[in-house]
C-alpha cells in the first residue's frame, strides 16, 4: 500500500493543464501585452519590457529571464502564457508563472514558442540587469557588477544609477559608483555629463579608466588639398614623419582615389617579363635590364604603348604628397569629449611616468643590493687584503648549492633557509681557509699569479659542481612568507624577496662595520693589512689573521649565495655571472672602503636599470653599455668613487 501515494502523485502530474491560474495578476499583465510577447519586434517591444519590469510583481523577473532564454510559450487556444522546457520534438514540460507550479508534459502542437531576436534579447537582458542589481542576495549583485565591468553596454547605465541609491554594501556601492562614472564617460547622453565624468577621475591611474578613455580618442587619417578645419581635427601630420611614413601617406591617397597607384619592384619586373617580345621589352634588350633605371625606362615605354597601366614615378609621388595635407579627425567621440579624454590620458601618462620612475628606483636599489651582497665578500678579500680571488663567484655558487642540499634534506622551507645560512657560511669559510692555506699564502705580493691560480680553482670548482649537480638549474625555494610582493599601486610594487635581500645587504654592511671597527679581529686585520711586519712585532700572528680574514670574506660570499639563490636559479655558472660585476662594484666604489662598495653597487645597479629602461627590450645591451660606462669611469677616477689617500693607498 505504500505505493499508493506515489501513484496518485503521478496521476496528478499527468493531468492536463487545467490547473493554470488564468486570473493571476501576472497572467493578466501578460495578456495586456500578448502581441509583443508572442511576436516581439525590436522597434515596438520596449514598452512591453518596461511594463513587465516595472510592474513590481514577484514573477516579473522569471518572465523576462524565460523570455530571454526562448522558453516562453503561449497556448494556441486560450492565449495563456506559460514557460516550458522542450523534452523532445513533440512534447514540452510546462510551468505556470504564478506560483511556479508544474503543469506536466504538454503536447508541443498546442503551444507557440516566442522567439525574440538577439536585439530584443539584449533589451530584455538590460531590463534584467536592474533585477540583478537590486537583488536581495549580495552575491547576485556582485556578479551583476562584475558582468557590467567586463562587458558594459549603454543600456546598463540607467539601472546602475537606480541601483546605487539602494545599495547597502559599502564596497559594492563604491564599485558601482566608479562603474557608473566609467559608463557615463562611455555612454553618457550629454557632452557636459561625459566631460564632467572624465574630470572626476583626475589623478586616477586605473587600467579600466584607460580602457574607457582610449576608444574616445581614436582617430582616422584623412587627406585634403585645402586646409583642414573644424573642431574634430585632432592634428595635422607631415608625410615622412614618424607618425606617418611617406608610403602610408601615399597609399592613403591611392585608396582614396586621389593618386595613381605605385608599383612594387617585383610587380614591375613581372609586368616586364609578361611583355618580353623575343629578346627585348618595348625595344629594349632584356640583357640590359639589370638596373632599376633601365627597368623604369622599359616600363615607361610599355605604358606609352598602352600595354600596361601608367604608374606614379618618384617625382610624381613627391609632387602629390606636397599638394595634400594629412590630418587626423576624432571618430571615437564628439570633439569636446575627445579633447577632454586626451587631456585626461596625457595626465595619466605623466603620472604613470612618475610612478614608473619610482618603480625603476626600487628595482635599481634592489639590483644594487644584490650586487652589494655579491661584492661584500670581495670588499674584504680584495678590498682589505688586496688578494684578488677569481673563485669568489664559485664561493657564492657553493653557498647556493649548500642551501639547495639543505632544502633536499629538510623540507620545511623556513627552517631550511634559516639553517642554510650558517651552514653556507661554514662551508665556504672552510673552503676559503683551505684555499688560503694551500694556494694564496704562497702568492702574496704576486697579484697576477694569485689571479691566475684562483682562476684555476674557479674553473675546477665550476666543473665539479657541474659534475655533481648537473647542468640544469636547481631551485632554491623561498619560504611562503616571502612570496608575493608589496604593492603600492598598479605600477609600483616590489617583491618581498627583494626587500629581504635589501635588508640582508644592510645587515651585512652593519656586520662588516662592526667586525672591522669594533672587534679585536678587525683591529688586527687592519694592522696586518697596513704593515704585516709591524703587526707581527706587536704579537699579532699575520698568518692566522690572513687566514681568518679570507675565510670571513668567503663565508659572507656563501651567505650571499643563499640569498641570490632564492632570487635566481642555482646553476654551476651563477658565480661567473656575478664575478665581473662584483669586481666592477668594488673597483668603481674604491678599493678598501666599504662605503665605496655600497656606492659602487648602487651606481652599478641603477645604471643597469636605467639603461634597461631606455632600451627595455634588450638587457644584453644594458649590460654592454654598463660595462663600457664603467671602463670609461675608471679612466677618470682610477681609484674609484671613494679613493684612499696617503700611505694606505700604496699598500
Amino acid at each position, binding site marked *: 500500500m505504500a505505493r499508493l501515494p506515489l501513484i496518485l502523485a503521478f496521476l496528478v502530474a499527468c493531468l492536463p493543464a487545467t490547473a493554470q491560474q488564468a486570473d493571476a495578476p501576472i497572467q493578466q499583465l501578460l495578456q495586456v501585452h500578448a502581441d509583443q510577447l508572442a511576436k516581439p519586434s525590436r522597434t515596438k517591444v520596449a514598452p512591453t519590457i518596461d511594463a513587465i519590469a516595472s510592474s513590481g510583481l514577484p514573477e516579473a523577473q522569471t518572465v523576462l529571464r524565460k523570455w530571454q532564454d526562448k522558453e516562453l510559450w503561449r497556448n494556441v487556444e486560450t492565449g495563456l502564457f506559460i514557460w516550458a522546457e522542450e523534452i523532445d520534438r513533440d512534447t514540452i514540460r510546462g510551468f505556470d508563472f504564478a506560483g511556479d507550479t508544474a503543469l506536466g508534459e504538454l503536447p508541443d502542437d498546442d503551444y507557440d514558442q516566442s522567439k525574440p531576436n538577439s536585439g530584443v534579447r539584449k533589451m530584455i537582458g538590460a531590463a534584467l540587469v536592474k533585477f540583478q542589481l537590486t537583488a536581495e542576495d549580495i552575491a547576485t549583485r556582485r556578479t551583476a557588477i562584475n558582468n557590467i565591468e567586463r562587458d558594459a553596454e549603454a543600456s546598463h547605465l540607467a539601472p546602475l544609477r537606480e541601483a546605487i541609491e539602494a545599495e547597502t554594501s559599502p564596497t559594492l556601492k563604491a564599485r558601482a559608483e566608479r562603474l557608473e562614472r566609467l559608463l557615463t564617460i562611455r555612454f553618457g547622453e550629454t557632452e557636459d555629463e561625459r566631460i564632467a565624468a572624465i574630470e572626476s577621475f583626475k589623478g586616477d591611474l586605473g587600467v579600466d579608466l584607460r580602457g574607457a578613455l582610449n576608444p574616445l580618442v581614436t582617430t582616422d587619417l584623412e587627406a585634403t588639398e585645402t586646409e583642414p578645419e573644424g573642431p574634430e581635427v585632432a592634428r595635422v601630420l607631415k608625410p615622412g614623419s614618424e607618425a606617418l611614413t611617406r608610403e602610408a601617406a601615399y597609399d592613403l591617397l591611392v585608396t582614396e582615389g586621389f593618386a595613381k597607384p605605385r608599383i612594387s619592384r617585383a610587380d614591375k619586373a613581372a609586368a616586364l617579363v609578361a611583355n618580353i617580345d623575343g629578346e627585348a621589352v618595348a625595344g629594349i634588350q632584356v640583357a640590359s635590364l639589370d638596373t*632599376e633605371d633601365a627597368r623604369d625606362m622599359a616600363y615607361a615605354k610599355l605604358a606609352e604603348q598602352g600595354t600596361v597601366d601608367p604608374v606614379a614615378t618618384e617625382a610624381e609621388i613627391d609632387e602629390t604628397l606636397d599638394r595634400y595635407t594629412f590630418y587626423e579627425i576624432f571618430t571615437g567621440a564628439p570633439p569636446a569629449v575627445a579633447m577632454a579624454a586626451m587631456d585626461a590620458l596625457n595626465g595619466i601618462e605623466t603620472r604613470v611616468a612618475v610612478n614608473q620612475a619610482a618603480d625603476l628606483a626600487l628595482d635599481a636599489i634592489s639590483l644594487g643590493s644584490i650586487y652589494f651582497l655579491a661584492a661584500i665578500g670581495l670588499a674584504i678579500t680584495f678590498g682589505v687584503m688586496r688578494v684578488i680571488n677569481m673563485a669568489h663567484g664559485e664561493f657564492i655558487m657553493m653557498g647556493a648549492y649548500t642551501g639547495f642540499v639543505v632544502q633536499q634534506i629538510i623540507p620545511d622551507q623556513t627552517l631550511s633557509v634559516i639553517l642554510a645560512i650558517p651552514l653556507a657560511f661554514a662551508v665556504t669559510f672552510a673552503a676559503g681557509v683551505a684555499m688560503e692555506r694551500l694556494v694564496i699564502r704562497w702568492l702574496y705580493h704576486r697579484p697576477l699569479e694569485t689571479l691566475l691560480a684562483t682562476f684555476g680553482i674557479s*674553473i675546477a670548482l665550476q666543473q665539479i659542481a657541474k659534475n655533481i649537480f648537473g647542468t640544469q638549474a636547481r631551485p632554491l625555494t623561498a619560504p611562503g612568507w616571502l612570496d608575493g610582493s608589496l604593492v603600492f599601486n598598479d605600477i609600483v610594487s616590489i617583491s618581498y624577496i627583494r626587500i629581504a635581500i635589501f635588508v640582508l645587504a644592510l645587515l651585512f654592511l652593519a656586520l662588516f662595520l662592526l667586525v672591522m671597527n669594533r672587534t679585536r679581529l678587525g683591529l688586527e686585520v687592519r694592522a696586518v693589512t697596513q704593515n704585516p711586519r709591524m703587526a707581527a712585532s706587536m704579537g699579532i700572528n699575520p698568518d692566522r689573521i690572513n687566514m681568518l680574514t679570507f675565510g670571513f670574506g668567503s663565508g659572507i660570499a656563501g651567505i650571499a649565495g643563499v640569498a641570490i639563490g632564492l632570487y635566481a636559479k642555482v646553476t654551476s655558472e651563477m658565480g661567473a655571472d656575478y664575478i665581473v660585476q662584483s669586481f666592477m662594484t668594488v*673597483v668603481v666604489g674604491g678599493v678598501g672602503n666599504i662605503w665605496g662598495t655600497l656606492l659602487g653597487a648602487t651606481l652599478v645597479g641603477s645604471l643597469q636599470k636605467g639603461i634597461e629602461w631606455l632600451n627595455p627590450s634588450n638587457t644584453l645591451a644594458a649590460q654592454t653599455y654598463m660595462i663600457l660606462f664603467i671602463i670609461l669611469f675608471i679612466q677618470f677616477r682610477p681609484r674609484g668613487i671613494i679613493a684612499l689617500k696617503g700611505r694606505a693607498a700604496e699598500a
Partner: protein
Amino acid sequence: MTDSTLTGTAPRQPLALRFPAILIFMACLALFTVGVTILSEGFGIGVISTSFVKTLGKTLCLCLVALAMDLVWGYCGILSLGHMAFFGLGGYAIGMWLMYERTRLIVVESMSAQALPPTPEQISDGIASQIFGVVGASEFPPIWAVAHSLPLQLAAVVLVPGLLALVFGWFAFRSRVTGVYLSILTQAMTLALALYLFQNDSGLRGNNGLSGLQNLPGLGNVPQSVVSVWFLWASALALALGFWLATWVVSGKFGSVLRGIRDDEARVRFLGYPVEAYKLFVFTLSAVIAGIAGALYYPQAGIINPAELAPIASIYLAVWVAIGGRGRLYGAVIGAAFVSLLSTWFTGGQAPDIVLGSWRIQWVDWWTVLLGVSFVAVTLFAPKGIGGLFDLLADCLTPNRHGADLGPDQGALREQEADK
C-alpha cells in the same frame, strides 16, 4: 749582445744567428708542416684525416695567438684577459667576407634562371635576406658596408682589432691602470663585446654567429682535404712570421725596455722612457697578431659565434701561456699546442675512463677539473712552465756555476741575467 749594446759600434749579427731558437723553431715547424702534408689525405698518403689536419691547422693559429699573449704578458707584464676578443674580431672580419661572397654566388646562381637579369638591388636584397633571415632582418647593417671587398675585409682583420686595442690601451695606460685592475678591465672589455654580439641587432647574426666559413667562395670544387692543407701551410707561415717578428721585437734595446717595464714600471719611467707608448705599441701589435690568427682559425673551424669571445676563452689563453712558460716565445707556442691538443683529446672522448671501484671518472666531465688543478699547480710549483724543462736541460749541459745576487735587494739583477 751586452757588448754591442754598450759600444753601439760593433756590427750586428743577423737576428737568426743571435737567437738560434728562431732557426730551431723554424726547422721544427717546417718539418711538422711537411710531415703533416705528406701524411694528409689531400696531398699525401692519407694517414691523417682531414678533420685532424684542420685541428692541427687550428692549433697553429692558437699557437700564434698565444705568442701574441706572451708578448704582452710574458715580456711586458700586461696580463690581458681579453685577447681572444681580438682573435674573435679577426675571425668575424674574414667571416663577413666569406659569408657574403658565398651567399652572393648562391643568390646570383639562383637568380640567373629568371627572365630578367637581376639588378644590383635585387642581388643585395637576396643576400641580405639569406644572411639575416635567422635574426629576422632583411637589410644589411652598416658594418657590412665593405663586406663585398676581400682587400677591405682583410684590412679590417688587422685594423679592427688594432684600433680597438689602440683606443682601449690608450685609455687604460693613460690613466695608469695596471696589474689586476687592467686584467679585470680587459676581461670586462671582452665580456661587453661578447654580450653586444649576442644581440640579434648587433648586425652579426646574434648568437647564430657566422657559419659555413669553411667553404671558400669560388672554390666549391676544391675538396676540403686540399683546402685544409692550404690553411695548414698558411697558418704555419703566419706562425713562423709571427715568431720571427716577436723575436725581433723582444730583442735589442726595445725588448730590454719591455722587460724593464714588466719588472719595475716606475723605475723605467724615472729613467725617462715613455712607458705608456711602449705598452700601447706592444698591446696593439699583439692585438693585430691575434686578429690575424683568428682570421686563419675560423675558416678552418667553419663557424664563429659570440661565445668564442666569452671571458673564459681568454682565460684559457692565459692558461696555455702559463703552462707553456711565459717570458719565452717558444714556451707560449709549446703551451698552446700541448694544452689545446690535450684538451681536444680529453674532451673528444678518446681518453680512456679511469675506473675507481664503482666510480668511473669520465674525462669529458673531469678534464676541466684536471686543467684547473694543474694550472694552480703550475702557478705554485713551476712558474716557468714547460719551458722551464729546457732550462733544466741547459743546466745539465753546462753546470750553473754562477747565480749570486749582484745586489742586496730581492729585486736585484742576478749574475745569470747580467750575462745574457
